[in-house]
């Protein structure tokens, strides 16, 4: 903490007291139900994007009867502007491994996986060493649990839970129909808990300190802290653990400056907030302003006045058009139409009113796309086009 800090920092995730063995042993001595209740009371929500209550996820999976169950740590971090999971895995891997093993204990799984994106290949060696040490300790305390790394190969969509399962099963990463949900039908069709790296790191905090310590931070509906990946036009790029519920204007006062034109909250699948709406926006799972839901992964990208919002939107749409799995019509074709559409308006090939047709299309994509990727394109599209319409045209 320094004088320049406006938003309160926290230090649970990266503080390493080398006490994972103690936390693991103590937690294993409690009943699965106790651990579930601890998570539920903490009101921890998924930190990867969807914000599903973690305690409930573990509870639902633990209640199902199956010979095989799995725990999967989603380390396919690919949302533009997000780089926190990489740091967690390189700096405090044992917290994540402990959380995975405890999840296994709670739901009745003997195997855990870390789906690591291919771009993070360089993390593999150290991570494997950590797993080796971890499994050795588990053996010593007579807890039978194995963790394996599964490498991705360059596909953003594999961060979507069902696409991740498909990928692990050796297939194209095409998301599945939901229902059924992963808690009932996940990897290999078995009950699976899939959690983001950061979510698991937070469960470690909660098991170590108890739910109250976590719950007392943050605000209603958005308890606890979150890692924010800050980049772009900012004097303070980096990763910060902050309490949830802050206002965006406080955030910009801390991390931006007078020239900050807009902030992209939640990566390309998140929302662009223009300066005039900073004070009316807060960061959490149910923000005060219409349209701001949870920050997908906590990516915060700041843009100053030199940045063209057209270029920004063009960049996002290119990203989605490429990374879409291509399976469903609204996403596969919709992304192309939005991308080519804004280019056509900019070049004068289509009238400015065509933007309204595109806004309507984006809305349809939100309602009809098969997975979160297609459903979220509208977030940035609508927020950028509505707030910076002139930049789309001139």
């Amino acid at each position, binding site marked *: 903490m320094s004088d320049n800090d406006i938003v309160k920092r926290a230090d649970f995730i990266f503080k390493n007291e080398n006490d994972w063995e103690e936390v693991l042993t103590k937690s294993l001595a409690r009943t699965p139900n106790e651990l579930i209740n601890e998570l539920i009371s903490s009101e921890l929500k998924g930190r990867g994007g969807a914000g599903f209550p973690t305690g409930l996820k573990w509870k639902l999976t633990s209640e199902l009867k199956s010979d095989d169950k799995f725990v999967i740590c989603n380390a396919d971090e690919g949302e533009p502007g997000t780089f926190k999971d990489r740091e967690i895995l390189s700096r405090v891997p044992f917290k994540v491994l402990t959380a995975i093993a405890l999840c296994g204990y709670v739901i009745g799984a003997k195997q855990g996986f870390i789906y690591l994106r291919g771009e993070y290949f360089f993390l593999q060696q150290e991570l494997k060493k950590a797993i080796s040490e971890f499994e050795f300790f588990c053996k010593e305390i007579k807890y039978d649990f194995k963790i394996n790394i599964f490498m991705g190969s360059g*596909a953003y*969509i594999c961060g979507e839970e069902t696409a991740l399962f498909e990928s692990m099963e050796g297939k*194209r*990463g*095409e998301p599945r*129909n939901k*229902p059924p949900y992963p808690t009932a039908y996940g990897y290999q069709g078995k009950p699976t808990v899939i959690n983001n790296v950061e979510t698991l790191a937070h469960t470690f905090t909660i098991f170590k300190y108890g739910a109250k310590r976590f719950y007392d931070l943050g605000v209603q509906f958005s308890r606890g802290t979150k890692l924010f990946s800050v980049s772009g036009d900012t004097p303070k790029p980096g990763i910060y653990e902050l309490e949830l519920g802050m206002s965006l204007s406080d955030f910009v006062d801390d991390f931006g400056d007078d020239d900050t034109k807009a902030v992209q909250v939640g990566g390309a699948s998140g929302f662009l907030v223009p300066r005039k709406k900073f004070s009316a926006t807060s960061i959490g799972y149910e923000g005060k302003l219409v349209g701001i839901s949870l920050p997908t992964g906590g990516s915060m990208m700041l843009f100053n006045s030199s940045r063209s919002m057209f270029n920004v939107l063009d960049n996002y749409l290119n990203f989605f*058009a*490429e*990374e*879409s*799995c*291509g*399976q*469903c*019509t*609204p996403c*596969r*074709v*919709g*992304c*192309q*139409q939005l991308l*080519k*559409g804004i280019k*056509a308006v900019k070049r004068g090939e289509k009238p400015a009113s*065509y933007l309204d*047709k595109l806004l*309507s*299309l984006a809305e*349809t994509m*939100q*309602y*009809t*796309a*098969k997975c979160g990727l297609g*459903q979220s394109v509208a977030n940035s599209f609508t927020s950028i086009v509505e707030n910076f319409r002139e930049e789309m045209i001139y």
Partner: protein
Amino acid sequence: MGKKVKITINGQPVEIDKGTSILDAAKQIGVIIPTLCYHKDLCVAGNCRVCIVEIAGQKRLAPACATPCEEGMDVLTNTHKVRNSRKHIIELLLSEHNADCTSCYKNGNCELQLLASEFKIMNQDFIHLVPFRNYTIDDYSPSIIKDDSKCIRCQRCVRTCAELQSVNALTMAHKGEYAQVTTFFEKSMNDVICTNCGQCVNHCPTGALVEKNYIEEVWAAISDKSKYVVIQTAPAVRVGLGEELGFDPGTRVTGKMVAALKRLGFDAVMDTDFTADLTIMEEGSELLSRLRKALAENDRTIKLPMATSCSPGWIKFIEHLYPEFLDHLSTCKSPQQMFGALVKTYYAKARKLDPERIVSVSVMPCTAKKFEAARPEMHDSGYRDVDYVLTTRELAIMIKQAGIDFTRLEEMHFDRLMGESTGAGVIFGSTGGVMEAALRTAYELVTGREVPFDKLNITPVRGTEGIREARVKIEKPKKEWAFLDGVELKCAVAHGLVNAKYIMDKVKAGKADYHFVEFMACPGGCLGGGGQPIPTNPDIRQRRAIAIYAEDEGMTLRKSHENPEIIKIYNDFLGHPLSEVSHHLLHTKYTPRRL
């Protein structure tokens, strides 16, 4: 018999089995939800998003085909949100589709066209995406044309080729805007393992996959006064053709079909069912000869089970995937090819025609037959035995082009010499039919008695299960067949290549305890063939099957060996089954193929 749930659809209460999809529940109360990627034959995909509906309390729309009903669900299929979204989806599909309807082969029978018409997509403001891609048409195969510019990525063809046929010629490749349906390394269909069965064509909703048509070539032959154009008609055509010309599925239109063909201008209209009977004579004798060698003479080189060989999709399948087992195949040609070889020899001679003048055409429920006719070895007459193969669909087109009102035609009979058939010949059109026909003749040949089944209907080999088995015990055979006394003839029937794979894997493992197996590439047998009217589904195929067996029962002669034209051709020309002439004209060799 599971739990029931109560839901409402558009305010109307419905009670259905738990787990029923919204789509099926809606059908039960007469609510039609449009679909595109959904097909009764295939697993649910849920990717086109055309069937999306509103569920009260949910912001996002749900795909009706992939969403199971849950207690208390309040489904709305026609709200403003649903209609608007659906229109967008159709517009999006049209934007990535080369909509040259007036020049498209599927004009009039395209599911995308139908949707665009129903939803009156008058304003297509979206940017046309086709020019941004370098699509080329793949028309190197003699059977199937693939036009990627018309593909809507519903993946029906991929699922068909994988689930129904286990051939896996097609896959989705790449992702995002470059996601497309293609083959291994985007090679031509002709250069990968493709059996030409045409099931992909049957299941494709648009004109992305169609058969290669020879309509103009056949018109040219008919118009050429110097040519004598002969046509043969497969058994399955007569129970499918009607669907294209105003009749319900499963209507028998044999007589009208013959009349139409005569009006089209064919010089002779004869019947593949005749050579189906002939196939039974040859193949039945071949089977008995193998049994004699294997059981009586202990000849270890004889391969059992013997497999039927009239389905060219099946033949290419075994040539590619089980080339070490080609010896199991009967050496008999298919009825189409037997006919072709005979028409330019036997028929030409009898009618005093110069075989050079003869153009031999067939109408088949099949696309693989086009490949079969072009096989290099099919020249035993001294000419190409079958010059052109038309599918049932192409014949319907020609009938319409000729201005024939099919429904008002008077029934006519096939021409003589190669136009007479028995019920055993017509049942070739259904899965189990070849087996049944063979048993009717072989059993009688061996025992002197009719098969012990009521009305000669060998029901154990009939039906729709992928693999069916039947055992026929031979008791008190004629003296020359004494070695078969007490032998239980073990037979199996497989339809759909996924079931052929199952049996061949058993053969590979040495666990196929059969003497004789009938293999048909297409689900339902030929009546569900790749050249039959579109759409196809289990119900339509069932009705065509009923028609085939009704046609059989309605015939005077039910056993191949009783066909007088068959008796005549042996007397006058072939001598006896498996004679030298037969071997030359009616039997063939196979080609082991790798990719």
